[in-house]
């Protein structure tokens, strides 16, 4: 068993210590906004924040996450329900196509904007490495700049 802090709540999960955090979040905690895409930290669909840093949760074990602040897409909005500016920009710019990779993309972008409130295209290119097979990149870039300027 491990005690995790997810979206500000303390949660006990009955899993082996080496369980990937992704699967504990999805199957044991029941938060399914964090997506499985590859399992080898390539695609970024499972991106969450651990102590404010964007991490691919398939590559982090439960034991490594104990004692840390975990934020999933479900915890990105403010406590009053107001959407994060990245989520708002995503809606306004009509970014998602199938949408499956987008929660991970949004988490990666939210972390980028925390580090670099006004990212350049180069910053975006270097930081946002998530795979999107629908090919939303053009709208992703526009929405990142829109969120930065919101």
């Amino acid at each position, binding site marked *: 068993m491990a005690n995790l802090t997810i979206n500000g709540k303390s949660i006990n999960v009955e899993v082996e210590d080496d369980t990937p955090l992704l699967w504990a979040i999805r199957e044991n905690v029941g938060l*399914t906004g964090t997506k*499985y895409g590859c399992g080898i930290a390539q695609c970024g669909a499972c991106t969450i924040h651990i102590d404010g840093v964007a991490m691919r949760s398939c590559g982090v074990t439960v034991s490594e996450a104990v004692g840390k602040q975990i934020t999933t897409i479900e915890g990105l909005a403010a406590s009053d329900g107001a959407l994060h500016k990245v989520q708002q920009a995503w*809606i306004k710019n009509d970014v998602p196509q199938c*949408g499956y990779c987008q929660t991970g993309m949004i988490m990666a972008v939210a972390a980028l904007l925390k580090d670099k409130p006004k990212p350049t295209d180069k910053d975006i290119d270097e930081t946002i490495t998530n795979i999107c097979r629908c090919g939303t990149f*053009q709208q992703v870039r526009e929405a990142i700049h829109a969120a930065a300027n919101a």
Partner: protein
Amino acid sequence: MNKHITPALSRRAFVIGTAAAGAGLAVGLDIPFGGPTVVRAADGSPEVNVWVVIRPDDTVVIRIARSEMGQGTLTGLAQLVAEELECDWSKVTTEYPTPGQSVARKRAWGDFSTGGSRGIRTSQDYVRKGGATARMMLVQAAANEWTVPVSECTAANSTITHTPSGKKTTYGKVVEAAAKLSPPADADVKLKDPKDWKIAGKSVLRLDTADKTTGKMMYGIDVKLPGMLNAALKDCPVFGGKLKSYDEAKVMGMKGVKKVVRVNDSTVAVVADTWWHAKTALDALPIVWDEGENAKVSSESIAKWLTEGLDNSQPAFIGNQNGDAKAAIAGAAKKIEAVYNYPYQNHAAMEPLNATALYTPDKCEVWTGTQNGEAAFAAVMETSGLPADKCEVHKLILGGGFGRRGMTDYVRQAVSIAKQMPGTPIKLLWSREDDMQHGTYHPVTQCKLTGAFDKDNNLTALHVRISGQSILFTVRPAALVNGMDTAAFQGLAPTGDWAIGYSFPNLLVEHSMRNPHVPPGFWRGVNVNQNAIYLECFIDELAHSVGEDPVAFRRKLMGKHPKHLAVLNAVAEKVGWDKPPPKGVYRGICQHMGYGSYVAGAAEISVTDGNKIKVHRIVASTDPGHVVNPAQIERQIAGSFVYGLSALFYGNCTVKDGRIEQSNFDTYNSMRIAEMPKVESVIVPSGGFWGGVGEPTICVAAPAVLNAYFAATGKRIRSVPLKDQDISFA
């Protein structure tokens, strides 16, 4: 009062009314004699017809039979219905009817299949009529209530107005009465001229975005049912191989494991409390395969077999011909010849394949993302052995499809497992590795092209000889025409949705069919992807061989193909073909046709060290006839270049020992944002026809870049992907 809409007072009147509305709209309910019957949605709100439900609070629920997988069809179809319905767009929501409901109502919603860029173009007519019919019934209900002639009433924005008196009511207030009316005769349903559209044709925002930004959107992989268990599976790594044996005793004691089941002849699954436990146990399960003869096959052996098919002595199907190309080539003053090839590629949708099944002897239900609800339904019937009225498929939004989710293998597997555990819902999820190595791959082909010139450098003949795999041979053998796969000639056909855009004095296009054991499938764009490379790069070669400008050379051959020419011209103009590109930047251009749409593309690239390509700018044009949502078309075009350029730079599934070597995104890469060029769309709808949008522009991505690469380096690349030519993104 409109004579065509009368209250349905008898079964006879009802049946006549619905029959007249056309097969696509026939409700065909078994209603009691003597009284009006209202069909109600799950929340009790009345159906005006199968496409439109209106709630008392004026919310409009539009039914969408086609699947949404990112391409925007859900929003586009809703726009078309709403346009004719004259409803308040801000009150529109959507829902999927189930295939089981459709079958029970004599296929009330028509075709569910969502492939071939058909989502809108092959249902636009009957869904628009559905919206128009519902509007006429709502207006009639208001006229009846006011006892005024319907001709004095108008509808706009979900409000009905009696013009002479100024009386107003809303759809939600009259829907109960409207639902009791018979629909008008089909002949009385007049559709709007697209030039009068107010909702359709506009870049309204998608209806399905908000939940995709918060994690609330439910995909198949997110389904949760009470008591549900999870399954992970292994299929024989060699296609066509068999499952010989497995030692379940070795894993039954592992944490969470409930059962190990034989899924089919080649597949075993572990069922556990969580998928992670199932997967962990599966990886520890000793399995013995009978790999069979196919284990000897490799990419090299396949390539050798295909190369033999390029020889004219081998039999081939003829897909297009005029004149005598072989004779013209034999007597040519100058002959140009080149051989191209295209590899196997995986769809790699972001959501790995999955399906959740619940089987009892009385009912089998499946929850899944599918591009073809009815095919999935048939798969459930077949695998469960239960009749149609005891089967159901609940469709979810797809985490990508690209053709792969038109197949039903994963649905059958889920039902097979569930059938061995009656009463327990089973969620089957493939790993990414399963997805990469058990795909239905973009087929492998080679192509030899020969062009002939006379002594004055006039092109006299073109011979296109394709050798390789047929998709239909495996996937839809009944669609072969005397053995020929007509789809192999997509973009090279004489006429129709796949017409070649040039006229040649002598032309021969043929296909030597060779079907390796690797299963092929429809892969976004399908056969136009390689056919456009073959034709459009070779046309570029021919132009350069006689020192002509590639656009001018094409124009000479396109006099009888004005729509093809129009998109080529649109791209040439937008990219500035008549002016030189910036220093160090080189251009390539191409055009093609697919799915009833005319498309063209141009790329501006620079090349460093001879092998590092930076794609600066893409200009792409399409004429899909009609445009339902320009912003969504722009997104499909930009996205199609990500799919098409990922395929060009990275896409290769190689075969070794009968199996696919690549297993995940580390060995089968996909483009990232840093590699994304600026894509400029030029949408030039000419009206009068309905072409597809989701697929056609993919095929101009690769030839545009390859032709630009030649302009930059003088080197012609005839083999995909570029990574295997030691060429990468800069």
